[in-house]
C-alpha cells in the first residue's frame, strides 16, 4: 500500500500527536541533567522541577517594590497592545480590502501601492516609529498595525475579487447599490476570510510586539524576557516563552471556533 493511503487508527494517531511533545521534554530533561552533572550551578538549562517552582512563584508572588504581580501585569499590557494593534489592522484590512476588491477605481489607485508598501520590512522602520511616536504605547501598537495591515489588505482584496461575479451581477439585477453589494453580499462572505487572515497574521503580530517591547518598554512579556536575560534567568525566560506560546495557541483556537460558530454557511459550502 502506498504511504499516502496509510491512515493511522485513532489511538495510534493520538500517540503520534503526543510523541513530539514528549520527545522534546525528554531531550530537555536529559540535557539539563547532563549539564548539571558537570556543573551543579548551571543556569542554562534549569531542571523541570525548578521551572515549575519558578512558574508558581511568578504567577503568585507580588513584586516587592510595586506590590503588583508582574507576570499578570506583563500579560495584560502585552495583550492590550496586541488587541489594539491587531484590531486596528483588521479594521483597516477589511475596509481597504473591500474597497480594492469591489471598486475598479480603488483597485487602480491602491493595489500597486499596497503591493509595494507591503514589501517595506516593518522592523526596519521601527526607529522611525520611535522617533515619530515616542517610546510610549503608540509606537508599539503602530508597529503591529503597520506590520500586518498590508498583508490583510492584500489577502482580503484578493478574496473579495474572487467572489463569483455571478453573485455581484445577480445583486445588481435585484436593484442593489454599490454600498448594498458591499455590505450585504461581499462583507458577510469576507468576514470568515478576515478571521482566517487574522489567525495567519497573529504570528507576525507577536513578533512585532515582542521586538517593540524588547527595545523600549516598561512592562510586557517581551520586555520581561529581555530584562531577565541580563541575569541569565533561563527559568523565567522559559516560563514566559511557554506562556506566550499557550496564549497564542488558545487565541488561534478561539478564532477558529468563533468562525465556525458565526459562519455556519461557510462550513456547508
Amino acid at each position, binding site marked *: 500500500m502506498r504511504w499516502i493511503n496509510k491512515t493511522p487508527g485513532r489511538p495510534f494517531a493520538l500517540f503520534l500527536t503526543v510523541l513530539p511533545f514528549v520527545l522534546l521534554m525528554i531531550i530537555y530533561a536529559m540535557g539539563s541533567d547532563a549539564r548539571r552533572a558537570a556543573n551543579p550551578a548551571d543556569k542554562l538549562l534549569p531542571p523541570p522541577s525548578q521551572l515549575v517552582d519558578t512558574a508558581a512563584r511568578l504567577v503568585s508572588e507580588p513584586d516587592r517594590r510595586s506590590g503588583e504581580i508582574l507576570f499578570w501585569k506583563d500579560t495584560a499590557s502585552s495583550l492590550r497592545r496586541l488587541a489594539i494593534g491587531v484590531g486596528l489592522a483588521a479594521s483597516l484590512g477589511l475596509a481597504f480590502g473591500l474597497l480594492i476588491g469591489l471598486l475598479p477605481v480603488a483597485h487602480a489607485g491602491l493595489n500597486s501601492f499596497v503591493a509595494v508598501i507591503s514589501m517595506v520590512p516593518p522592523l526596519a522602520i521601527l526607529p522611525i516609529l520611535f522617533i515619530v511616536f515616542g517610546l510610549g504605547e503608540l509606537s508599539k501598537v503602530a508597529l503591529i498595525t503597520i506590520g500586518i495591515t498590508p498583508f490583510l489588505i492584500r489577502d482580503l482584496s484578493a478574496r473579495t475579487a474572487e467572489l463569483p461575479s455571478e*453573485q455581484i*451581477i*445577480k445583486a445588481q439585477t*435585484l*436593484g442593489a447599490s454599490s*454600498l448594498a*453589494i458591499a455590505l450585504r453580499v461581499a462583507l458577510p*462572505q469576507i468576514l470568515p476570510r478576515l478571521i482566517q487572515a487574522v489567525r495567519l497574521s497573529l504570528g507576525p503580530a507577536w513578533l512585532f510586539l515582542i521586538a517593540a517591547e524588547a527595545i523600549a518598554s516598561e512592562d510586557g512579556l517581551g520586555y520581561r524576557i529581555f530584562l531577565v536575560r541580563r541575569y541569565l534567568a533561563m527559568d523565567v525566560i522559559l516560563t514566559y516563552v511557554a506562556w506566550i506560546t499557550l496564549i497564542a495557541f488558545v487565541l488561534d483556537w478561539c478564532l477558529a471556533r468563533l468562525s465556525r460558530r458565526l459562519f455556519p*454557511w461557510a462550513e456547508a459550502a
Partner: protein
Amino acid sequence: MGFVTVEHVSQKYGKRPILDNVSLEVAEGAFISIVGASGCGKSTFLRLLLDQERPTRGEIRVDGIPLQGEPNRSRGIVFQRYSTFPHMTVRDNLVAAEGLGANLLGILPRARRQSARARANAALERIGLAHVADQYPATLSGGMQQRLAIAQALAAKPRILLLDEPFGALDPGTRERMHDFLQDLRAETNMTVFMVTHDLSEAFKLGDRVLAFDKVRWDPQFPDAYGATITYDFDARDGGIPYQILKEDTYVLDPAGS
C-alpha cells in the same frame, strides 16, 4: 415594433470578433431559446442583453429605451451556478430579492420586513422549498438551488428573464420537473424569457422561438476570423411543427422558395 430590439450588434474581445451583425425583434411575453455550438457567442449575447457588457457596435433597446450600461431590476438572470447568496438562508435569499434594492444600504425597513417574509414563505411553499427555508443553499440539491435561483430572480418582478444554461447541471428527471415549474411560472406572468441551452429538445419544448447562433463565414486557416450571428430563427410553437420558417437571409438553400 418589438419589445426587445437588437440592431446590428457586433461584439469583439480585443481583435477577436464574437458576434457579427446580430439583429432581432422580440415581442413582449415571448420565450426565446438560444442554441448553438460552444464558443459561438450565445452567452455573450445574453451578457449584452443583461447589459453586463456593451456591444462594440449596434444597439439594444428594451421598450424603445436603449440599455443604460449596467444591469438593473428590469432584467433578471439565472446562471448555471452561483446564482444564490451562500451566506443567506433560503428564505433570506428571497427576502433579499426585495431588500437589496429597497434603499442605498440594501436593508429592508422593519415595516416592510414582515410582509416580505410572508411573501417569501408563500413563494417557498409554491416551489416546494418550505421545509428547507432555514437552511443554507449549499445544503440543497442542484435542482432545489436552481428553483430557488429562479424564484429569487422572479421576486424582483423583472420584465425580462435571462437564463444561462439554467438546467445544464441537473439530471434528466430533475430537468423535466424544472421544465414544468418554469412553464407554470410563465403561464402566470407576461415575462419575456431568453434561455441559452445546449439541449435542443429543451429549446423546442419550452421556446416560442428557437434562435441558432453560428458562424456564417469560416476561415479554416484562422477560425477566429469571423464572429457568429443568428443563422436560423425557428418558430417553435407546437414543438416547431409545422411552422419551421427559414430566415430570409440564411445561407442555406431555401427549398420552398419562400
